[in-house]
Every structure is written in C-alpha cells, then in structure tokens.
C-alpha cells in the first residue's frame, strides 16, 4: 500500500502552529492564537481520520495489516551501525493512536476557546497545547525506540509546562515539578532498558525488534545479571519508564497532583493521551516482552491489577472532583496494563492485547468527556469540591446528560463502549489468571460506585450557595461534550478484533455471557449503592466513614504515599546521601580548585620583585640566561 506520504503533515502542522504561536502569539489578539491552533488541529484531525480510513478499510487484509513506513531519514549518524532515524511508522496501533490523539486534542482545542477565555497567557496555552500534540504524535509514529524516547521526553516537558501553567500558584509549581521529577526518574529506567536492548540486539528499529521469529535475540539467552536474563532486565526497565508515564503504582503520586493544571489539559494529557503512552509503549514492545521476557510480562500484569484496585479504593473517598477522575484514570490505566500482562500472542490468544487497545480507545473518549464535563462544572461553580456542588442538573442540562452518559460508559453498562472493552479485558484475565480476574471484577463494581457517587453529589441533592446562578457553558464547550458523548456511546461497536490485534491478523470473538452478565450486575450494584447513599442528602456516608475510622482516614490521605515519599527523600536521601555529597563537593572538589588559585597567588607575590622595571636587570638576566644555555649546550655536546 502506498500513498501515505502526506502523513508527514500530521506531526508537522502542530509543530508549525507551535512555533508561530509561540513566537508571535504575544503580539496578536488572544483569539487569533486560539483560532489558529484550533484550525491547525482540525486539519490534523481530518488528515488522521483519512489515514485511518485508508489504512483500515482501503484494501484487502486477508493476511493481516502491513507495517508501512512512508518516510524515514537518518537523523544522527555516529557510526555505520549506530545511527538514529526519524520516521513515520504506520501500523494498526499507531494509526489508532493518531485518531485518539487528534480527536481529543481537537476537542480540547475547541473547548479551551470557551474555557480559557480571558485567561492571562491564552496564546501561551495554545502554543503549549500544540507542542504537546506534536510530541505525542511523534511518539506514536516513531519508527525506532530512540525516536520514541526523544518524543517521550518532549511529552514530559510539555506536560510539565502545562501543569505549571498557573505559575503564580505555588501548588501548581510544586505539582509540575513533582510530575517532571517522578516521570524523569522513571525515564532513567527506560533509557537503561533501551541501552541494554540495543546492546543485545544491535538495533533500535521496531520493525526488526518485533518481527515474529526474529533471530536477533540469539545471543541474549546466555547473558544474565544477578540470575535474571538480560532481556528480562531490559523489558522490566523499559516498563518502569512506561509505568512512570502511565502513573502505575508506586510511581502514581504525580498524577493526582497534576490536576493543578487547567482542566482541558487534564483531559488531554492526564486522562486521554499522555498517560496511555506507557500502555502504548508496552503494546509496541509486546512481541519482545511476550517471547523474550515472560517474567516482565507477569510483573506488568500484577502492577496493573494492583494499581487499578488501589486507585479505585482511593477514588471512593476523595472530594475534589478532578482528583476522583484522576484516580479513576489510574484505575483504568491499570486495567489496560493488566490486559497486556495477561495477553498471549496471535489470534484468540492475543485477546488481552486487543482488549487493552480497545479499552485505551474507549477510555480516551469517555474520560476526556468526564474531564471536560468536570471543567464545565468547575467553570460554572468556581470550585473543585463536591460539597460546594449539588442540584446542578437543573442549571446545566447538556453537561448533565453528557456526564451521565460518560458515567454509565465507565461503569460498563451495555451497550455503551466501556462495557465492550471492559468485558474483553475481564475475559482475557479470566483465561490467564484467576486472581487478577477477581481483582478486576471488584474494581468494576468500585468504579461504578465512585463514579455515581460523584454524579449524584454534583447533579442531585440540594442546591448550594453559589456566587451566581450556575449557567450552561457556551457552545464552544458544549459541542465537544456532545461529540465525545456520541463517540463514547458508539465506539464500542468498532470491530477492534479485526483491526488492532497482536499479530495484525483479525480474529473472531463473541460475547462471553458468563463474564458479561456478572460484570454488568456488579456495575449496577455499585450504581445502586451510590443511589442509596448519595441521591438524597443523608448522614449514612458520614456514619460509614466514622465506622471505618482509621481505614477511611488512610484511604482519604491516599494511604500516605506522598508522605512516605517525602520522608524518604527529605529525611533519608537528603540527609544521608545528598548532604555528604554536597559536603564533598564544597570541601574536597571546590577546596582543591580554590587551593590551586591560592598557591599560584602566593608564589606570584614572592617572585614579583623580579619584575623591577629596570631595563638593565632584564638585559643582564637575558645575557646571563643566553650564556648559561650556550655553555650547557657546549658542555653536553662536547
């Protein structure tokens, strides 16, 4: 298949928009930057849809989808064997990601026209959004793992810039630093993993790495470190990088704080696109992980399962609506990781892989919708906290309906999209690991419960004292909500098992009633419990909280993970590692350098008398020196 040369425009347009808006945006009226960004993103969105249509439906795929590289160039050449390429790789998962990213990004651009209106730094906001979109697109179309790493870091930077968008607010600054440092720390693992992998295989190229039955791992079997094979090390380290970006336990601490950024940013970066980069990375490396490092795949499955349970429990107790959604994101990311962890390769066996990608797609739609809905609510009541909200359904009908759809979707109510993708994950888990299946089953119930706790608290119950009567958001904000609601409802009918699979071949799947029925029931049970507890104002939740006492407090404080991290860094690392290093630097290294300077100065004081200013002294020295040289020369030559 040819004719994909135009795909180079997909990352280039956001880049150009970023440069133009970033350099000239300050001089324009703010709305010009916004419109420019939105139009550019609309173009990219259209191009991505065209690409997806042509790739998935433009030909026969009896023997699976081809991997297409429409563009590739050598970017850095160190030696003939060591060079880094930049290019575009189209295969089912990257094309799917193009659609996800450009859809959400376009919606967020449109939404921000209303949400960010009148904010200081409007042009800057749009410039950063474009930078982020460019980096994320570059990440998913990377042809080799090093290109991916470069864009991976760029994504981290733009996330940092956007979390810290309100840079006059200390909490936003702290949150942006936290996000950057935690993910950067994880990226160190990623980099070491890349180095081990490329050392073993001699290539960065995804095509060569993921080719079925490839021989490049021949030498890897004999290499091991501390009793664990080199490939397991490499894949585990690469997964740590992915876990950092996808905020898997125990590197999850940055994501809830990242909600300090503007809400559209949370929707785009911290719900739908950037945080799934880790899932995407694992999916991209899936054949390598599955065949070369089964132990690493086990780890991925368990980390995903634990994160999803852990985050769902915390989400129940939070009051900041954006934090509830953040923990919900964590939980759903755990689902995707788990699905990859329990997946096999090829055909029906690869159900988990397909389910993970499917859930990534549907989750992006409904979670972006939830965040944009939350933004619309915050826009109306000027607070993030549930106890400042109530009875909003009367004032904000569009937000209410779309939010309800999103809640039903994430709770897994058929026939909305979340039901299908979650069902596939549960089936895959059931086939491979009963324990993880049980965890996910419980999490499905918890998810429905905390989402409807949020829903009832915000839209039902009593009216609060509002500064002004809450109003429905402007059209620029409600159109994206409606669009995403439609996508959330219908994206479940996409035939993912024919399009995005582990070996690029389609397979047939059917509903598994034995799994689907109980999972729907537990979701409905969660909704019902939320209905009883939160539909009307009652004292039962407070009583329950009291009853659980310390358990509730611990959960409310996110199991004190932030405090543990602070303790470890402040008390242990700063005191026992950083301080001695600082002392060494200040006294030994600096002392040595200062010492050299001091000694030179002292000596020069002693000998400066030799420069007397007397011409005849110089002449005498010169003649004496010449004579001494001449005599010594004579002496040694004779």
């Amino acid at each position: 298949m040819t004719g994909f040369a135009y795909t180079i425009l997909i990352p280039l347009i956001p880049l150009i928009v970023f440069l133009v808006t970033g350099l000239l945006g300050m001089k324009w009226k703010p709305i010009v930057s916004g419109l420019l960004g939105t139009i550019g993103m609309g173009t990219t969105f259209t191009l991505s849809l065209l690409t997806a249509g042509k790739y998935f439906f433009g030909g026969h795929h009896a023997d699976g989808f081809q991997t297409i590289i429409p563009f590739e160039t050598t970017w850095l050449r160190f030696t003939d064997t060591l060079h880094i390429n930049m290019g575009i790789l189209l295969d089912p998962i990257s094309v799917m990601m193009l659609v996800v990213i450009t859809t959400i990004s376009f919606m967020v651009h449109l939404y921000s026209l209303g949400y960010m209106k009148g904010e200081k730094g409007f042009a800057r906001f749009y410039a950063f959004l474009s930078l982020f979109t460019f980096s994320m697109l570059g990440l998913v179309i990377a042809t080799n793992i090093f290109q991916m790493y470069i864009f991976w870091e760029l994504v981290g930077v733009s996330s940092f810039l956007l979390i810290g968008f309100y840079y006059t607010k200390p909490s936003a600054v702290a949150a942006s630093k936290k996000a950057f440092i935690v993910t950067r720390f994880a990226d160190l693992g990623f980099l070491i993993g890349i180095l081990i992998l490329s050392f073993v295989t001699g290539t960065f190229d995804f095509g060569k790495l993921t080719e079925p039955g490839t021989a490049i791992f021949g030498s890897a079997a004999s290499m091991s470190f501390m009793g664990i094979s080199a490939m397991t090390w490499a894949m585990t380290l690469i997964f740590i990088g992915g876990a950092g970006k996808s905020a898997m336990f125990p590197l999850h601490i940055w994501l809830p704080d990242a909600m300090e950024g503007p809400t559209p940013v949370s929707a785009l970066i911290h719900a739908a696109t950037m945080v799934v980069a880790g899932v995407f990375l694992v999916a991209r490396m899936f054949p390598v992980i599955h065949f070369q490092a089964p132990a690493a795949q086990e780890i991925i499955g368990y980390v995903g399962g634990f994160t999803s349970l852990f985050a769902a429990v915390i989400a129940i107790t939070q009051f900041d609506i954006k934090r509830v959604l953040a923990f919900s994101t964590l939980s759903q990311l755990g689902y995707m990781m788990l699905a990859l962890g329990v997946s096999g390769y090829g055909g029906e066996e690869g159900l988990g892989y397909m389910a993970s990608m499917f859930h990534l797609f549907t989750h992006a739609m409904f979670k972006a919708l939830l965040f944009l809905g939350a933004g619309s609510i915050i826009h109306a009541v000027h607070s993030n906290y549930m106890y400042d909200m109530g009875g909003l359904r009367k004032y904000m009908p569009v937000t209410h309906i779309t939010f309800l759809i999103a809640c039903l979707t994430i709770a897994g109510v058929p026939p909305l999209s979340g039901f299908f993708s979650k069902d596939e994950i549960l089936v895959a888990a059931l086939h491979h690991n009963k324990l993880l299946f049980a965890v996910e089953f419980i999490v499905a119930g918890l998810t429905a419960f905390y989402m409807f706790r949020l829903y009832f608290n915000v839209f039902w119950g009593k009216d609060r004292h509002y500064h002004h009567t809450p109003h429905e958001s402007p059209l620029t904000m409600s159109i994206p909500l409606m669009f995403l609601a439609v996508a959330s409802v219908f994206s479940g009918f996409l035939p993912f098992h024919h399009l995005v699979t582990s070996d690029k071949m389609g397979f047939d799947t059917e509903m598994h009633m034995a799994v689907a029925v109980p999972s729907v029931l537990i979701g409905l049970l969660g909704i019902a419990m939320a209905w009883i507890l939160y539909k009307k104002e009652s004292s039962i939740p407070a009583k329950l909280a009291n009853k659980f006492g310390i358990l509730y407090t611990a959960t409310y404080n996110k199991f004190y993970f932030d405090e543990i991290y602070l303790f470890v860094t402040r008390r242990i690392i700063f005191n026992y590692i950083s301080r001695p290093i600082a002392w060494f630097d200040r006294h030994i290294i600096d002392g040595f350098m200062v010492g050299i300077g001091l000694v030179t100065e002292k000596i020069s004081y002693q000998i400066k008398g030799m420069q007397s200013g007397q011409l005849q002294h110089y002449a005498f020295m010169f003649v004496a020196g010449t004579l001494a040289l001449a005599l010594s020369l004579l002496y040694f030559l004779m």
Partner: protein
Amino acid sequence: MIQGIPIEHFLIVSTIMFFIGVCGFIIRRNLITMLMAIELILNSVNINFVVFNRYLYPDQLQGHFFSLFIVGIAAAEAAVAIALIINIYRKLRNIDVENVNEMKF
C-alpha cells in the same frame, strides 16, 4: 686570505667588540651611552657577516648585503631611540636609565 690574515683574528676582534657592547649596555646608566653600546654590538655582527662571507663564500654577496641592511636599520633605530630619549628627558629632566622604571608589576 686578505694578505695572509687568518679568519680567527677577525672573529676575536668582533667577539671583543660584542662583549664590550654588552657590558656597556648593562653597566652604563646613561641612555646615550647605552645606545652607543648597542651600536658596538651591531657593528661586531656586521664584521662577522662580512668576514664569513669573504672567507667561506667568496663568490657570493649575501653577507655584504646583510651588513648594509643592518647599517640602515641601525640608523633608523638610533633616530627612534634618540626621539624617545628626548621625551624621557623632557619628563624626568635627566636621561638616567634607573629612573625609567614605571613599567613594573
């Protein structure tokens, strides 16, 4: 060669002249006298050039021309030096080299 005078005699004369010049440059305090000492050094070099040319390469003329250049340059140098000395005299009211010691440290 020049009526039987061996080359060593010329060289001894020029060496003596050279060291008289060096001594004069180092021990005399008067700037004019130091300038004269420099002329002595230059002329001892001139003698060497001419003598080596005449004794070793009698059919060539480079040595002679070198001497001529040195004489010319010595004249120019004397002009510059005397101009400097006059300026020093105007500033210090004497031409003693020990007083010209501003350019230290």
